[in-house]
């Protein structure tokens, strides 16, 4: 090992230590709990190894908790619901974010930074605060309902809270910048000559969009979609504050298991499966980015 590679190891050592300490070790702790059984002890689960001094002599863990998750439709429904809401929410972000990113990318060069700043600015406030702002808008005596009834358009307040609509608006208001930024990066690189060439070759603006702009911004679409989808799956705050009681998302189920049922092993296995769901799209994201750079 030369001095150069030694230096390289020194540089990556701190982040590796950080990841080991705060990601890898907790990961194994949770994995271990997910294999244990609940117990009325403190902490509330059984040990999965028998020890002889420093050496483990027996393994007591099992997959009972995972089997339990499969047996109860509550969990399957929560997973399915989480993925559905995250997928639709990310799609709504894409539909809203794409035109915004397009306009910014095509704007005059000295306007672009200002417009980007306007996109990022809300990101600097707490996401919790932004979700509470939505409650202020949507609640029965919130801004929208009171304005509509003041105008005489409605008699009884509209049910805006505890709806899918509220949850999707929560995802949009929380994650939209994560969609816009990669889209902007992809669209900004797009050569304007290509669009002109397409229209010169007989493509209407719509055809130009489908055949040139969209395929060439695909990397940005995939990146933005996953950046919104991944945190949305495990989202707890948005469904808890904006969603209805029937809207089981996995983050909420996890919370209930941990803090209401105090069943740590089941909660841990819920977390492990959620992690598996998230790792797969993340690997996909890494692959697309790798091939884009190649």
């Amino acid at each position: 090992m030369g001095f150069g590679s030694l230096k390289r190891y020194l540089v990556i050592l701190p982040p590796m230590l950080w990841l080991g300490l705060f990601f890898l070790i907790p990961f194994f702790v949770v994995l271990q709990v997910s294999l244990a059984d609940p117990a009325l002890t403190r902490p509330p689960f059984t040990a999965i190894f028998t020890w002889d001094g420093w050496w483990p002599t027996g393994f007591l863990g099992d997959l009972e908790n995972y089997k339990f998750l499969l047996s109860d439709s509550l969990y399957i429904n929560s997973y399915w619901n989480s993925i559905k809401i995250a997928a639709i929410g990310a799609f709504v972000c894409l539909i809203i974010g794409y035109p915004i990113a397009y306009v910014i990318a095509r704007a005059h060069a000295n306007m672009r930074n200002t417009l980007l700043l306007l996109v990022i600015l809300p990101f600097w406030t707490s996401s919790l605060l932004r979700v509470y702002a939505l409650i202020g808008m949507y609640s029965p005596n919130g801004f929208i309902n009171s304005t509509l009834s003041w105008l005489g358009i409605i008699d009884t307040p509209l049910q805006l809270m505890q709806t899918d609509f509220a949850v999707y608006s929560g995802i949009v208001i929380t994650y939209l910048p994560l969609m816009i930024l990669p889209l902007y990066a992809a669209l900004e690189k797009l050569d304007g000559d290509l669009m002109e060439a397409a229209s010169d070759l007989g493509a209407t603006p719509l055809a130009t969009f489908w055949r040139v702009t969209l395929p060439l911004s695909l990397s940005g679409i995939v990146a933005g979609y996953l950046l919104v989808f991944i945190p949305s799956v495990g989202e707890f705050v948005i469904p808890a504050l904006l969603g209805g009681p029937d809207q089981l998302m996995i983050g909420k189920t996890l919370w209930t298991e941990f803090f209401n049922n105090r069943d740590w092993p089941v909660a841990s296995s819920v977390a492990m499966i959620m992690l598996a769901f998230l790792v797969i799209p993340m690997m996909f994201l890494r692959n697309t980015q790798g091939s884009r750079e190649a």
Partner: protein
Amino acid sequence: MADKAEESGPKPFLRIHNISKHFADVRAVDEVSLDIQQGEFFCLLGGSGSGKSTLLRMIAGLETATSGHIEIEGQDVTNVPPWNRPVNMMFQSYALFPHMNVEKNIAFGLKQDNWPKAEMDARVQELLDLVQLGEYGKRKPNQLSGGQRQRVALARALARKPKVLLLDEPLSALDKKLREETQRQLVAIQKEIGTTFIMVTHDQEEAMSIATRIGVMDEARLIQVEAPREMYERPANKMIAGFIGQVNLFEGKVSRKGKTQTITSMDTGSLLEVVDNTKLEDGQVVWIAVRPERVLLKTNPKGRAANKANGKLTDIMYLGGITHIQVTLDSGSPVRITISEHWDEDEAKLKLGDAVQISFEKRAARLLVE
């Protein structure tokens, strides 16, 4: 000259009438009128910012005209969007779609026009053969050399059989050797398919060697439209005389009018005679333009006569086939001379600083009033 064609000649294939383009308060193209016949290889020549590219983009429909109109085969296309115009453009950057291979790039316009698959494939193959890229159909643009990309761009622009092909500095990204070869190919392809070509270039040699006619643009206006030879022999003004080839300009005042006009020039310190029928006034300031290859050089300066001037040899640049010589006249003005026959310094026994005499025929010069 365009006016004459409007009255007598056949109906022009492409007519540009009084077209202008203003960007904010900048006039990019200012009241340009131009008629182009079918099958021409027309070159728009001008420096950067002369408005030549904007004019081309207006023909393509990529810029909308501020005023004036454009007709193709008698049909007004001024407000027709680019995707509905019977013209195609080859971009300076080539603008090949990076996510499509060569075949798909060429077929882009055909697919847009809903060609049947079999005919489309045949047309793509025909074009690949035309630009000699038969085996490269499956390559992506980033797997091609600059010259190959240029040919794909040409094939793509020709695919829909446009009535007019527009070329925006199509050769500027190629190196010198490849550029000359490509110029020849371009002319051969144009002759083969007979499509009207309009090419924008800033390279006067390129325009001279390719074009059937050249239109010179300067400061948003079209100054002169001529075939290359006539443009060279009879430039309309000093700017064009200097832009198309090299030229010696002698300023003077009209001293005698007639079939042979006589000018008293301070630049040569002598009378200059030129055969020209321009109407002049006594004392009017004019310029005599003489091409470097039309200037004669004598080693023994004797006598003072019209179209002769004495000076000193100040530079000799031997280039093999031709030799560039610079003479500084006694008045101080420099004169460039090009000698194309075999030049032997020893034989001529000329060295820098020698006294020499330059002269030119009165039919070899051109009188310019602006």
